[in-house]
């Protein structure tokens, strides 16, 4: 059983104030106190060096920091085996053991849980010491760096207060492994950390090599993803359909409004002369040719003939006088042909514009009804 008064007896022995009876009582209690490792119970007999034995036992019990953390850590495992709970031990143990347990439980691979951070941020805890004691076993880097970047957080302040600049780096470095290299590569360190990292990088060829490797890795990942993914397919059509928009609709375009605006702007104009002038432009003779013989009708493709007819009728309506004037000046009379296909009535067709590429051959002939018929090369676009 534990003897709560053992420590006071040990203090008296250490200070040379204990009586022979008190030393004997302390010897008896030490032999049965489960807070002490078994081998210590028999070694500490208070015979050759009673003051030294008492001081050592007080340190082991955590009542006197004579040997500090090293001794405590050395016997921590044995205390564990002796089934001592955190509540049974003295104050210096009560914070570090659950903290260590929590950190170990959360150590995983990446991040610490909120409760541990809260514990770390508790102002009453010697955070720097705790982190140093636990370094190498856990990965505190993410939260710690985050805290460093946020001066208002108590964790960052506590670490700074505990460690100072150089010690801070020494304390963090083992935990960070090469994380600072990774973060530095991404320009993600805060000013203070960046300064320390640069200094470190100058004297550390391994870190420089690591940074280069990380940079190369990034470029390769990017190339691999883009290379395998290939070009992005057409997305807008499907998206437009699903959000109820015409994929070809142009924002802000209104045909009726546009026409009205043009009319209002133009006022009354002589369209016949205007269109005629356009038909007579210098590029036209190269594109429109008179036929000596009739080519194979291009109107086997209904759509093409329809378009051609639409074009023909429009030209007929709008520019026929001018066209005939042009065609009759110094040119042979156009060969007449018999129209066997049924086309739409001319007065049902309205052409707003007619454009075609320079490489298109446009053939014209006059039907026996006087209508102008145009054929356009198959495959060309009006």
């Amino acid at each position, binding site marked *: 059983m534990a003897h709560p008064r053992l420590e006071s007896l040990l203090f008296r022995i250490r200070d040379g104030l204990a009586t022979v009876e008190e030393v004997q009582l302390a010897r008896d209690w030490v032999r049965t106190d489960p807070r002490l490792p078994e081998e210590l119970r028999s070694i500490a007999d208070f015979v050759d060096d009673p003051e030294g034995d008492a001081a050592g036992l007080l340190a082991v019990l955590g009542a006197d920091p004579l040997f500090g953390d090293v001794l405590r850590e050395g016997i921590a495992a044995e205390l564990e085996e002796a089934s001592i709970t955190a509540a049974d031990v003295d104050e210096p143990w009560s914070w570090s053991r659950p903290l260590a347990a929590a950190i170990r439980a959360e150590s995983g*691979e*990446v991040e610490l849980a909120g409760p541990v951070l809260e514990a770390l941020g508790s102002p009453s805890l010697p955070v720097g010491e705790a982190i140093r004691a636990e370094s190498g076993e856990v990965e505190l880097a*993410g939260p710690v760096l985050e805290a460093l970047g946020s001066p208002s957080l108590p964790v960052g302040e506590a670490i700074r207060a505990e460690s100072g600049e150089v010690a801070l780096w020494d304390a963090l470095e083992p935990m960070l492994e090469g994380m600072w290299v990774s973060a530095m590569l991404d320009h993600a360190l805060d000013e203070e950390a960046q300064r320390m990292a640069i200094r470190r990088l100058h004297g550390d060829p391994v870190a420089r090599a690591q940074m280069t490797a990380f940079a190369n*890795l990034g470029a390769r990942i*990017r190339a691999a993803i883009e290379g*395998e*993914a290939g070009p992005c397919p*057409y997305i807008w059509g499907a998206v437009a359909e699903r959000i109820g928009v015409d994929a070809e609709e142009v*924002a802000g375009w209104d045909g009726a409004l546009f026409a009205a605006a043009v009319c209002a702007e133009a006022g009354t104009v002589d369209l016949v002369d205007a269109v005629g002038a356009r038909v007579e432009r210098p590029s036209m003779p190269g594109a429109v040719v008179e036929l000596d013989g009739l080519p194979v009708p291009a109107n086997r493709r209904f759509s093409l003939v329809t378009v051609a007819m639409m074009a023909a009728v429009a030209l007929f309506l709008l520019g026929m006088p001018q066209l005939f004037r042009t065609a009759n000046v110094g040119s042979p009379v156009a060969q007449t042909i018999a129209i066997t296909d049924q086309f739409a009535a001319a007065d049902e067709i309205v052409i707003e514009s007619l454009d075609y590429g320079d490489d298109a051959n446009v053939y014209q002939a006059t039907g026996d009804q006087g209508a102008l018929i145009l054929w356009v090369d198959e495959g060309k676009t009006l």
Partner: protein
Amino acid sequence: MSTAVDEKQLSREEDTAMVKAVLDGDSTAYRGLVEKYQNRVYSMVYGMIRNREDARDLTQEAFVKAFNNLQSFRLEASFYTWLYRIAMNVTIDFTRRRKRREVAGFEEGIASRDADGGIDEIHHRESPSRNLERKQLYARIMDALEKLPPDQKQVIILRELEHLSYREIAEVMGIPEGTVMSRLFYARKKMQKMLAAERDPR
């Protein structure tokens, strides 16, 4: 002289203008946002799932979802981080639903053709041996990427492919910046280890 920051700001203002236009009732303005970000979203999604058809569908899904939720978008925020977050969530939902999916092999016939069935220009230009070498390298890197835990994969894609800052990644993934930093580091270390192990198997 314009800086990267200026360009980013301009781009952001452009996004905001388009979002406003959509919110004001001009749905066709959304086309601008789709065409601006479709490549980036598609590549990002592909990096996560490594299947072209699924990547295309999920990219569409992300844009539709973003459109439908545009009312909830805060105009002072960054549209693309908001969009990436949606795309990531859509992708994560998909991978959760998917019990087992065949990884799209980088077969000659598939890899050499683009989405419209045309011949990939790079593939067409390169010699067959060099092309094969390139594809093998890509496949090795993608295999390694695929083995990363999803969280780490997300982080490394957002950083290496999209060049998002830690803050932006944190915003997209809804995690602290410190966690971004550690996840990215471990992802890089793992990738490095996997690729080195493959190069020097012992």
